[in-house]
């Protein structure tokens, strides 16, 4: 379908060209306005992508057997053009139910961040440079989600690295340089492993086409184990999986608000998406082999994340560590290698992006107003800033997984999936993950008690109750999405069901 191909290219071309234009406009505010328009156009281009796919939103019937029935991915649209034949690199883009929710989430969060920057530029360099970098990061993330060629996937995976480094190093907190360097080196370590893993696969299979590779394309068991180990390590750094997570708290804490939102909201999802799409899809035997290890590490991440959060005294750091726990749930879902687990992982991904994005926006707002993130200096927020306190309460409750809000589905059904797998190991993991869920509730309630309740601290007492219009406009879509995904999880699951089933069919 021509329109679909056009949209796929536009989703990448619009922000890429937009970034150049924004950087070239000398007037700062005009450049930022252009950036917002570009981000909005990108979001508009992502929304109609499901149009023209073969099946409706709520239809769960299996696909009619297609000519290429062995293919485990059925992209709605794709674009395929040669780029560097010498390296097996093709410009092959596509979108399906696994990637589309993440694509929309990325475009939405970037738009909100650009809009937020229109209202408030964090201290550092010029606002237009920040907007341009955000757009470049968007190109990288969207490209990663859309790439159907392993080498192209790697290239886009790398594109994100330095612009994000620059965002942290240019506009971050007092310790930004160290945090940014740590982020860059850690994630580069991940992506060079990805590079080696990708070419282990390409050398063994002779192709880098994801459509042909998914389902292992006749690679030997040894190759699959090696490939999965390399790829899983690469994605574990990005996701991040305990014990490779230590770049995350520093980066998230030091990054400017918009940087934290993008980092937590969508950048981490490149890891989990890659794990599902590339690592599990390309090396299924390796995935089966490594699943218990992955599961144990994921549960360790949940518990460690929860316990560390209980002892945290800094607002942004606490939210950052909560990401380690939440991503642990997502990874546990992937490790189960069941339909329920993978679906839970996908919806957990989206929910975490929406809720943690909102949490970081709110934490940024609190820090900007009180000039402190220390929980000891914050209390009684509901007395002086009731709306902010209410939103923080909503986000925290959503994040701890209250039924009816987005966070619930992912985490509850990951536990269900682990129980369904059965056996002593997985049952234990399920129980421990459930305990981790309780820890999540404990630390978020502790956070709320400290920050919103009690007598206003001197830092909080100065606050005024009002919220800026721009803030409300940036946060409202996230609040609504958290509600919408919570009440109608089929928004995500409806599109993800068919591709997940197709993926599971090729698993041994």
């Amino acid at each position, binding site marked *: 379908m021509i329109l679909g191909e056009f949209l796929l290219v536009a989703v990448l071309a619009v922000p890429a060209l937009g970034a150049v234009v924004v950087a070239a406009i000398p007037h700062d505010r005009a450049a930022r306005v252009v950036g917002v328009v570009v981000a909005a156009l990108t979001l508009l281009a992502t929304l109609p992508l499901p149009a023209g796919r073969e099946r409706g939103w709520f239809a769960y019937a299996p696909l009619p057997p297609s000519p290429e029935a062995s293919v485990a991915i059925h992209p709605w649209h794709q674009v395929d053009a040669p*780029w*560097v*034949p*010498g*390296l*097996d690199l093709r410009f092959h883009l596509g979108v399906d139910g696994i990637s589309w929710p993440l694509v929309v989430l990325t475009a939405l969060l970037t738009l909100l961040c650009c809009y937020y920057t229109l209202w408030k530029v964090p201290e550092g*360099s010029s606002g237009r440079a920040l907007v341009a970098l955000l757009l470049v990061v968007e190109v*990288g993330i969207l490209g990663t989600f859309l790439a159907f060629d392993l*080498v192209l996937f*790697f*290239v886009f995976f*790398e*594109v994100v*690295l*330095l612009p994000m*480094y620059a965002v942290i*190093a*240019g506009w971050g907190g007092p310790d930004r*340089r160290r945090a940014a*360097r740590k982020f*860059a*080196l850690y994630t*580069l*370590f991940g992506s*060079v*492993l990805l*590079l*080696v893993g990708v*070419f*282990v696969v*390409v*050398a063994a299979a002779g192709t880098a086409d994801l459509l042909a590779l998914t389902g292992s394309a006749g690679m030997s068991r040894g190759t699959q184990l*090696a490939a999965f180990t390399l790829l899983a390590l690469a994605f574990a750094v990005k996701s991040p999986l305990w014990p490779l997570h230590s770049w995350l708290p520093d980066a998230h804490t030091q990054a400017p608000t918009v940087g934290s939102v993008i980092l937590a909201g969508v950048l981490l999802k490149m890891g989990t998406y890659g794990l599902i799409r590339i690592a599990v899809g390309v090396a299924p035997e390796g995935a089966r082999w490594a699943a218990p290890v992955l599961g144990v590490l994921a549960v360790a991440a949940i518990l460690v994340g929860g316990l560390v959060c209980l002892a945290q005294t800094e607002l942004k750091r606490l939210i950052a560590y909560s990401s380690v726990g939440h991503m642990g749930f997502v990874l546990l879902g992937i490790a189960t290698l069941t339909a329920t687990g993978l679906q839970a992982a996908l919806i957990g991904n989206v929910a975490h992006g929406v809720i943690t994005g909102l949490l970081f926006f709110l934490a940024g707002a609190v820090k900007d107003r009180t000039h402190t993130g220390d929980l000891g200096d914050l209390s009684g927020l509901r007395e002086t800033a009731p709306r902010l306190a209410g939103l923080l309460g909503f986000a925290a409750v959503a994040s701890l997984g209250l039924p009816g809000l987005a966070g619930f589905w992912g985490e509850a059904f990951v536990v269900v999936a682990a129980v369904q797998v059965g056996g002593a190991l997985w049952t234990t993991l399920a129980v421990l993950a459930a305990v981790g869920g309780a820890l999540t509730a404990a630390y978020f309630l502790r956070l709320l008690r400290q920050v919103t309740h009690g007598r206003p601290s001197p830092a909080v007492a100065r606050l005024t109750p009002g919220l800026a219009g721009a803030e409300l406009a940036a946060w409202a879509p996230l609040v609504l999405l958290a509600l919408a995904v919570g009440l109608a999880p089929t928004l995500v699951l409806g599109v993800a069901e068919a591709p997940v089933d197709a993926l599971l069919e090729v698993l041994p």
Partner: protein
Amino acid sequence: MSARSELASPAVANIADTVSARSELASPAVANIADTVSVVQSVDNVALLPAYLAAGTAVLVLLADLLVARARVTVVAAALGATATVVGAVLVGSGGERRTFCVGSDCSYVFDGRAALVAVVVALLTLGVLGLSGPLLRDGTSPAGEYCFLLAASMTGGVVLGAAGDLITLIVALETLTLPLYVLVGLRRGSLASIEAAVTFFVVSVVATTLTLLGAALLYAATGALHLGRLGALFAERPELLDLPLTTAAVALVVLGLAFKVAAVPFHAWAPATYDGAPLPVAAYLSTASKLGGVVALLAVVQRALPAEVTGPVLALLAVLTMTVGNLVALRQRRTVRLLAWSSVAQAGYILAPLGALALAAGRTDDARAAAYAAAVAYAVFFVVLELGAFAAVVALRPAGAAGGTLDDLRGAARRRPWPAVALALALIGLAGLPPGLAGLFAKVTVVRSLLDGGAGWLALVVAVNAVIGLAYYLKVTAALWAAPVPGGVAGPAASGPGEPVPVGPVPAPAVRAWSVAAVLVAATAAALVLGVAPQLVLDLAAR
């Protein structure tokens, strides 16, 4: 010097002729060969055209300096000559392989696709370095006539090098490339550092050449052959030659002598001191054209002459040491050129890495070998483009005729000179192998891919981990460009703190604004960007 190289090739051919005549004394062809030993050998002058043009450039520069004696005319003459060499090499190279100075099937001069690529790249690099030298020659720090002559003579060596078909031509060409550089490094009036650098470079390089020559002599003693192709065929036909201790020693000497030239660890110690002491454009030439020459020579002997079973493990070890040591030491550098020097040591490791795949049997199949050689050439080309860009940007950011200075001198450069700073950042990030320096990214991808095709996954992992170490210092320089300037550093005496010594003497001259430097910078950056979007151009040329 150029005259010497012109004379050298036929002379060498004659020596080679007598050599093979002696080794085939029993054959009935002796009479014919004895005829060809006389001077009436048919010479394919078209094949030699690029070499003639390069040598002619040197002569032209000498004449221009003698007759007109104006720096500008001399430089323009050199630039025209280099351009003519590029055109000549492209024209001859596009016409298919041409050989000359042949004895039977063995030829001393083979101008094939790779030779054309090397000649074009060397001539272009010379052109670039000439552009960078503009400010240096204008203020009279270095004498223009000598400077341009030596550069052109060195270019002649580089042009012949790619086409060298026997060990002696190869070594003579490599020496013609290097010899003028001893002088060039020291060619800065009143600079002790330059002299020191020149002496270090001279001593180390002469020792290296001696080693290579000794190796070549021993190889001749063991096999009776000097032509690269003949040696390769002999080793393939008579594997028992490899059991001779003499052969192993000879191979090792040749490889190690050439490893000096590419500054591979542990034969690298001369490079940082030499680069840092040399004038900036000469350092740029050393780390691009001269390094490329070493790589081409090494590649020629490894690919065509020496047995991969012996060279493979040596090269794998050299590659691992070179990239790891180069990167680790670069982390600690505070001076810009030293940092670039150590980084280029590390980059030499990446160039050698694909050849390390020859250590394993899986890496010695025909396909894997071809891929490894192509990857090494491709990486070298990507590297010289980015490296020239980095040096051009440093020249543009520094005062006219100044040395590289420290990293602190570059702090905040982006606020004063945004465009050169962006170009420097792009080149450094490309050297680190990350987007937006896509050329560097594809260079790394090429190396890793060839290693995995050759079954050398462990070496690919070493390359990968080294890329991470490399990013640490490339990022340090790049971040410094956007950092707040150090008080008292570049800002001048007024801004220096109370405890710091106030710089005496005139306020530092403003950074260079020469059009020739800007042109080189733009050209190198544009080339890097184009190769980033279309790396297939280089991959195709490298595979020829």
